[in-house]
């Protein structure tokens, strides 16, 4: 893949993302036309009060609901896809998804305990984040106890930790009050952006910007990590250090994303494959493409989720229904040259 073709792909995807973002802001129960969006935003930027009454209603809808939600969907999509790509690279395995080290099950246990304790939204999100990080810390501690730092042992620890936490979650669901708590847990596990406002967007921004830029910076090193420990070491890399940083970044990204909107399946697995199909396996190219396409995919899914029916469709339903066939198609397309 030459540089020109790569830049063209990035440009087209970015353009699509911008158009989708504009469309997402306009589409909804109160549909807004793009020109009005421009007017509302420009008057906001110029710090002029909005005089027109309908524009004032739009102002509320846009800044309180749609813009935060659009931003959140793009960031979460980018974060989940990016950590999927990074995990796949580091673990040399294209079948790995961001919850390989137990982030999602940890976050679910965190969120479920907040629900059972009857705590509010902010606590639910913080518990989910801490639960996710706790799971990864646990999964990365087991290899240290065994003094075996191979990828296989790390993946096995991830499986052990998520297995344990999944059972813990099952206990919590079992004791939960059916009508309120249980449905809240189940709904949380299917993922949704409906409770999101600017506060959440601000909360995940640091993780998004720091994690994404560090991983973009290390993208070429991820190529080398994907050759395996022996080759990476003989190429002069401090394998444990670089692997540690990339796994920490990817886990922070996943935990932050999951904490605000619940677990969302498929995207972290499918989008990296799409990126590889578009620009090849070289992580210096596929990571930026993964970030943009992840944002695009999540935004489109979320817009469908809130606009298709009068009730909101949980995100994991759509990512599965749309993502799984996409994945099958991708495998069909790339069967010859990606694995």
């Amino acid at each position, binding site marked *: 893949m030459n540089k020109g073709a790569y830049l063209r792909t990035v440009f087209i995807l970015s353009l699509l993302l911008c158009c989708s973002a504009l469309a997402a802001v306009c589409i909804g129960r109160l549909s807004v036309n793009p020109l009005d969006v421009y007017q509302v935003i420009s008057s906001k930027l110029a710090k002029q009060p909005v005089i027109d009454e309908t524009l004032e209603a739009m102002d509320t809808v846009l800044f309180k609901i749609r813009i935060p939600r659009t931003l959140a969907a793009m960031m979460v999509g980018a974060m989940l896809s990016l950590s999927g790509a990074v995990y796949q690279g580091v673990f040399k395995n294209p079948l790995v998804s961001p919850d390989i080290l137990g982030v999602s099950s940890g976050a679910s246990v965190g969120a479920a305990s907040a629900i059972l304790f009857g705590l509010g939204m902010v606590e639910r999100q913080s518990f989910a984040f801490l639960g996710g990080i706790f799971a990864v810390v646990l999964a990365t501690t087991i290899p240290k106890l065994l003094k075996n730092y191979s990828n296989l042992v790390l993946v096995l620890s991830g499986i052990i930790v998520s297995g344990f936490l999944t059972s813990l979650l099952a206990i919590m669901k079992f004791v939960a009050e059916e009508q309120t708590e249980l449905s809240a847990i189940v709904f949380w596990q299917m993922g949704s952006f409906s409770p999101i406002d600017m506060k959440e967007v601000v909360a995940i921004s640091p993780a998004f910007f720091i994690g994404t830029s560090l991983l973009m910076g290390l993208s070429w090193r991820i190529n080398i990590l994907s050759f*395996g420990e022996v*080759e990476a070491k003989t*190429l*002069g890399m401090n394998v444990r250090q670089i692997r540690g940083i990339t796994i920490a970044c990817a886990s922070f990204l996943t935990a932050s994303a999951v904490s605000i909107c619940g677990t969302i399946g498929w995207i972290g697995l499918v989008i990296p494959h799409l990126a590889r199909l578009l620009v090849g396996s070289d992580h210096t190219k596929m990571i930026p493409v993964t970030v943009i396409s992840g944002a695009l995919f999540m935004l489109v899914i979320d817009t469908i989720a809130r606009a298709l029916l009068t009730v909101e469709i949980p995100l994991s339903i759509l990512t599965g229904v749309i993502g799984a066939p996409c994945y099958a198609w991708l495998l069909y397309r790339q069967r010859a040259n990606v*694995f």
Partner: protein
Amino acid sequence: MILEVNNISFAYAGAPTLFSNISFSVKQGQIISIIGPNGVGKTTLLNCMANLAAPTEGEILLEGKDLKRMKAQEIAVKIAFVPQFIIPSFAYEVLSYVVTGCAPRMGTFEKPKQEHYAIAQQSLEQMKISHLAQKYYTQISGGERQQVSIARALAQRPKIILMDEPTAHLDYGNQIKVLKIIKKLAAEGYAAVITTHNPDHALLLGGEVAAINSNGQFIFGSSREVISEEFLSSLYGVDLRLHHIPGIGRDVCVAASL
């Protein structure tokens, strides 16, 4: 003298000593073939030299500095390692693969630029496989992959190239081709240390032989002096013959019969 192996021993945790008191040195332009039966620790010895395994006793000095006290990056600018099995998980282009040989001379967040790709191209030319540059690494043959892997080692601009069974999994023609390449690299000044299961390869390459027998004893010397019928037969525990073939002007190692 580039690399000095001083009295090293090795034992895996909880296992008896694999080999002990191994000493030899590697000089510029030298070819050393490590031979011996299965399980005596040929690859482990090579791994110790690559700093992939740490000897339980003794030390390995790279230009006078103890490998144990060196960073992976410092070692990688002088020692390149060509692994036996390369199982790529992703389809990288050959050029993207070879350019990773420049990694030891680059910063952690640096990405390969024009100059690095130029080095990679040059290494491919050195191996006469420039035509593979844009091919997917997963789609080339085993022999080509071995050549690409050596090209990556060359991109490291090392003084020593360590190769773990470079002829394994190759057809007969490719085996000879790889041996030729090793000989040529030595002529260009690289030191090459390889492990091999075929004593005839050690004869073909000439240079030195480092043999470990099943008792863990170590024998080192020029291949001409060390390799004899008795030596090979006792090393491998089968009846092996050494014959001088006048037509090609060299000794050949063959099995007597089955």
